[in-house]
């Protein structure tokens, strides 16, 4: 068994900042060619910039089937293979359920859950043919614990875990693993939008007494993508400073 990831190709969605950026950078450090996606051309350019030759940024709207098909076609034509898919792109539209709008529910479901269905389906043929592949879905601790004001986000993130297990069983015999990494509260733009009261309440429940760093999520993703993790599938690795032990 080879232990190198040199020469592999990875697609990381939502890679312009935060956890996605850390994942893209760490995969690139392993010699993986990384295609990182952003919602805008400007974001895509920023990704190309930080990858500095070890891949590229592309604009992708994960809620649009055409956009996904175009991105996968581009990858196929340019790189000829895709070994690793990291479904990281996600949004929050927080609201108490009693005030939640259909639009808030649908946006979170489309971006965080349906996109994973579409992208995973899109990469399946290539991975099945090569009898190898890694799909890593970024879930969230709140998909396990729940969080008030995030019924939509929690539902989508818990949905990813079920999706992951089902797909893992379908394709394990083809050498493809499907896993989740479930971050706790990580120091990103997404958690910066939490109120001070929310943060204090959260900190009281984190044994590590700090926010996690995006690099600490990326490390788990790189492990799952590595040859050494070939026998792990359908699993969720929780990276949350002890906040939830499940």
């Amino acid at each position, binding site marked *: 068994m080879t232990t190198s990831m040199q020469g592999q190709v990875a697609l990381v969605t939502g890679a312009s900042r935060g956890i996605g950026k850390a994942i893209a950078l760490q995969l690139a450090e392993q010699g993986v060619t990384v295609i990182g996606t952003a919602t805008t051309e400007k974001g895509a350019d920023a990704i190309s910039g930080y990858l500095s030759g070890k891949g590229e940024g592309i604009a992708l709207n994960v809620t649009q089937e055409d956009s996904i098909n175009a991105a996968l076609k581009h990858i196929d034509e340019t790189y000829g293979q895709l070994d690793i898919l990291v479904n990281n792109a996600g949004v929050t539209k927080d609201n108490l359920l009693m005030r939640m709008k259909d639009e808030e529910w649908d946006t979170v479901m489309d971006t965080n859950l349906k996109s994973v269905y579409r992208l995973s389906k899109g990469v399946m043929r290539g991975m*099945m043919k090569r009898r190898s592949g890694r799909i890593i879905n970024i879930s969230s601790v709140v998909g396990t614990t729940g969080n008030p004001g995030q019924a939509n986000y929690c539902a989508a993130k818990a949905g990813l875990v079920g999706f992951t297990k089902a797909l893992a069983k379908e*394709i394990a*015999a083809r050498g493809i693993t499907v896993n989740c990494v479930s971050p706790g509260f990580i120091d990103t733009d997404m958690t910066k939008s939490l109120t001070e009261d929310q943060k204090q309440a959260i900190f009281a429940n984190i044994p590590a007494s700090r926010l996690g760093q995006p690099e600490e999520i990326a490390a788990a993703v790189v492990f799952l993508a590595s040859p050494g993790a070939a026998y792990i599938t359908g699993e969720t690795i929780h990276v949350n400073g002890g906040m939830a032990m499940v």
Partner: protein
Amino acid sequence: MSTIEERVKKIIIEQLGVKEEEVKPEASFENDLGADSLDTVELVMALEEEFETEIPDEEAEKIKTVQSAIDYVTNHAND
């Protein structure tokens, strides 16, 4: 140049790892040739590539036997 029937049979033999004599026209992939549902999906993928055609899902679901695969390709192949 092999006939369509020969090419289809060759793909079935390769994809399902079965012997040539098992690939009878009436043989069912799942009941007789030991394929599971994912094997059948892969078999259809292989047929699509060999014959450079796209088989819609609703048609693919009807391809359950050796003969049905040969018939589909005979009726739809580009060449």
